[in-house]
């Protein structure tokens, strides 16, 4: 029983990380139909700069961690907004070029960060409480899982409130359904493109800092390794569906944890098989719009 609880909560923590990356990917695809392979760069640069600022101000403390998260959010948002403004904006409706540019940016971003911070993982310090465990129904749960889950829930609520309670949120929700009709109502939908990139980048940057807490290190490949699973989550959840991304994040991460433990480390294989099953049975994903 305690093992099941541990795997469940650890899965939820990992799912929280997947959601922070996948939420932005899903919104960006839903509104702009851009498959953003550079999304991992937003995460990694957020993680590195968050760690750099946090450790210089107050390493291994709550203050340092909060500052890291703030820096991760801001850096992720700025880098994502600049990416949209300088590169993607010229390439809407040109899908091949989008893939080439975003893949190129992802490769260049990793190379740049390896050049600055080296190729080896850099181990990070965190507040003492996060290194401890809490017992739940006999399972000793690492405390950092609770932090990840709590922040992912707050991010989900924040994005939902933004989408439901603001005019820009309304434009984004309508744009995900029918971008051309939003334009035909006299709305410059491209402004919201930059905003969606910034929101996605902010979530990814925050995810980068939290990934460094979860794994205990920062690395130039942090983003690319999480991005693969975030793409799988986005497809399983349904491209463009925030709720789908949240549900699929949890399902994929929990499945991964259980398969790793009970099926001899086959977690990644189980996730890929789940992706194949969803694509065969429900190609539009769990919460995606069915193809016309």
């Amino acid at each position, binding site marked *: 029983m305690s093992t099941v609880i541990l795997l469940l909560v650890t899965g939820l923590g990992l799912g929280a990380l997947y959601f922070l990356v996948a939420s932005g990917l899903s919104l960006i695809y839903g509104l702009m139909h851009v498959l953003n392979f550079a999304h991992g760069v937003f995460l990694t640069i957020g993680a590195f700069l968050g760690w750099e600022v946090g450790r210089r101000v107050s390493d291994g403390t709550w203050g340092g961690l909060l500052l890291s998260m703030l820096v991760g959010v801001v850096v992720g948002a700025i880098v994502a907004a600049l990416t949209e403004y300088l590169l993607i904006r010229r390439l809407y409706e040109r899908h091949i070029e989008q893939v080439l540019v975003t893949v190129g940016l992802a490769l260049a971003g990793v190379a740049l960060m390896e050049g600055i911070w080296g190729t080896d993982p850099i181990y990070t310090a965190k507040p003492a409480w996060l290194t401890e465990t809490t017992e739940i129904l006999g399972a000793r749960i690492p405390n950092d899982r609770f932090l990840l889950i709590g922040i992912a829930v707050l991010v989900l609520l924040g994005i939902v409130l933004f989408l439901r309670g603001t005019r820009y949120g309304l434009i984004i929700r309508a744009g995900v359904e029918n971008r051309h009709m*939003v334009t035909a109502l006299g709305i410059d939908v491209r402004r919201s493109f930059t905003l969606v990139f910034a929101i996605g980048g902010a979530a990814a940057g925050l995810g980068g800092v939290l990934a460094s807490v979860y794994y205990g290190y920062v690395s130039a490949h942090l983003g690319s390794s999480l991005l693969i699973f975030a793409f799988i989550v986005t497809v399983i959840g349904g491209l463009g569906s925030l709720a789908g991304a949240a549900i699929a994040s949890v399902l994929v991460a929990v499945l991964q944890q259980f398969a790793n433990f009970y099926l001899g480390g086959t977690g990644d294989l189980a996730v890929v098989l789940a992706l194949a099953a969803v694509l065969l049975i429900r190609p539009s994903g769990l919460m995606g719009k069915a193809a016309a």
Partner: protein
Amino acid sequence: MSEPILAVSGLHARIAGQQVVEDVSFTVPSSGVTALLGRNGVGKTSTIKAVLGLIDRTGDVRLAGDRVDRLPTHRIVQRGVGYVPEDREVFAGLTVAENLRLAERDAEPRRELVERLFPDLVQRKAQRAGTLSGGQQQMVSLARALLNDNRVLLVDEPTKGLAPKIVGEVAEALEAVADTVPILLVEQNLHVVRQLATDVVVLSGGRVVHTGGAAEFLDDDDLVHRLLGVHGDHAESDASEGAPAPEASATTDTTTEEGRA
């Protein structure tokens, strides 16, 4: 004669490499309803979309004398062009109230007018638009265009697929609105055209083949049959009934002109 609110000259448009509008020229007077007619697939909807810049096009489009064909769609709309698309295109996942709020451009949107014309929408403001009937969705689509103080409305097949009772309600709403704003109307139902239109522009093969007064056109049974494939306004045009559309013959009478200037 006052300046037309909308003047289209030498308009060409393509969709996926296919020429769908070819050298179309016409004007919409600053009052009344101008019906854009033609058999199915002649380019009526494409012409409306081309005016708005929703599809690739070339040509001269002027709104109250100002060229707008170099502006992006949202800027053209902001200058006072209301658009009611074919097939409604309401945002199915948004509520009725959200659909209407999204469309509000003016500082003082005309909510009272919309509520007076479509009281049913007030009752259903919290309902998701995707769960409305076709007629109710058409009300939402019309209401979105009427919320703002537009200089011209482009209304594309507003009665398509609706029950006769709803067709009457939609026509009444448009008739009430036409007193305050000129309308370019694409419509298959010739009863509705007779009820609303003051002028007609007839397309065939992506070109203008006839322009003139609506009543004169509809009273000319031979011309209507030749250009639309039906007899007068005793029935909807063949295109709306799914019958094969015979080729419109070349125009020969004095009220008919070629689209090319």
